[in-house]
């Protein structure tokens, strides 16, 4: 029996090494399956919870143009959640179980969404920085080994670039506006910069999952590589806005060809991951109540469908 498993694992690894995708009906190590259920579902939860901080400002968007753009972005995030829940379900778990994991606190979502949106400028900062960081991660994941996950990423990446451009356009408008508007923009950057860097996860040295993830081509680049890529791309964008990145140690390193940057507060990161961020409770309460209050709609839809089906059978029978 163990000989067969060894053989299956060898063939599985050979497929990965050859750059082939793994599909739902293919044999896979149990750990590969479980890791993907965790990672893809947490990505899905992040999309849905991520609708909340931005949804907060739809009613107060300063113009119709801003309102339609923000509404469309938040709708897109719901769709992204759907693609990712669908991808997770191919691994043998139901939507109900996934929600149960989220609502009980068993499953996590990206900790960036545990921060509050305090001003309209935050909507600009989120689109520019949070979606910007997500794009870098998601472009990398379009080459992930599990087929359904990679294909979901391709679709998401196409849609994500409008999200970032929408955010940057807001920042640009504020920075070209009044003194108060400029200050709002700088304040938002000050609050969202470091949490955005934390989106890439712990340092490689502290990341327990990274080695296996790279071997199975779940991750194609490490946390630190992606974080550096984000900083290198984003700093010139901040300079263009005339804003100051809140990092006194930020400096271009000619020798490395990258920006050197200051120390991240990992205590804050772990506190927020553990549930002690500013909005963790609020986010989960909102999701639980949405699910509970929407139960009657799901039940009514099903009851109606069954009734129609009975009618149809009675007519033909």
């Amino acid at each position, binding site marked *: 029996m163990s000989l067969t498993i060894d053989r299956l694992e060898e063939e599985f690894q050979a497929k990965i090494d050859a750059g082939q995708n793994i599909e739902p009906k*293919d044999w896979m190590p149990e750990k590969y399956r479980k890791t993907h259920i965790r990672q893809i579902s947490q990505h899905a939860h992040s999309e849905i919870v991520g609708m909340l901080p931005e949804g907060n400002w739809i009613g107060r968007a300063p113009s119709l143009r801003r309102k339609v753009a923000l509404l469309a972005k938040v709708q897109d995030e719901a769709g992204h959640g759907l693609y990712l829940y669908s991808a997770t379900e191919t691994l043998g778990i139901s939507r109900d179980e996934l929600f149960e994991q989220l609502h009980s606190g068993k499953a996590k979502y990206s900790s960036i969404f545990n921060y509050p949106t305090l001003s309209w400028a935050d909507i600009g900062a989120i689109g520019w920085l949070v979606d910007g960081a997500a794009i870098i991660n998601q472009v990398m994941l379009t080459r992930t080994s599990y087929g359904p996950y990679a294909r979901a990423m391709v679709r998401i990446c196409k849609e994500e670039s409008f999200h970032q451009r929408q955010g940057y356009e807001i920042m640009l408008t504020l920075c070209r506006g009044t003194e108060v508007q400029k200050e709002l923009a700088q304040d938002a950057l000050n609050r969202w910069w470091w949490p955005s860097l934390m989106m890439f996860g712990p340092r490689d040295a502290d990341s327990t999952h990274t080695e296996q993830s790279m071997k199975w081509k779940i991750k194609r680049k490490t946390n630190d590589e992606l974080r550096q890529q984000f900083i290198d791309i984003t700093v010139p964008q901040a300079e263009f806005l005339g804003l100051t990145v809140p990092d006194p140690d930020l400096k271009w390193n000619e020798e490395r060809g990258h920006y050197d940057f200051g120390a991240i507060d990992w205590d804050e990161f772990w506190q927020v991951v553990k549930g002690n961020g500013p909005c963790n409770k609020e986010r989960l309460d909102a999701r639980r109540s949405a699910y509970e209050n929407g*139960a009657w709609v799901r039940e009514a839809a099903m009851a109606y*469908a069954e009734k129609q089906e009975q009618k149809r059978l009675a007519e033909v029978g």
Partner: protein
Amino acid sequence: MSTTNWPLWEVFIRSKSGLEHRHVGSLHAADAKMAMENARDVYTRRQEGVSIWVVPSSAITASNPAHSGELFEPAQDKAYRHPTFYDLPNELKHI
């Protein structure tokens, strides 16, 4: 049927310039009408399609990847099904 477990549907879209419907994803819906409307809402937000098919996933029979070898074996040694197998002089046009 469970009150909360909506069946799964596969969504196929044909684009304006497309010749065939392509699989774009899946969703849960209580019935065909809801599946169609949700497919429209999720998968044609940027005018991706002019035609939508929604199919209950249970209606789809998929080939077993473990048997791909034997299933697709017949075509492996039939190069004569390809135009390049046939050697004709270069001067010939339109053939």
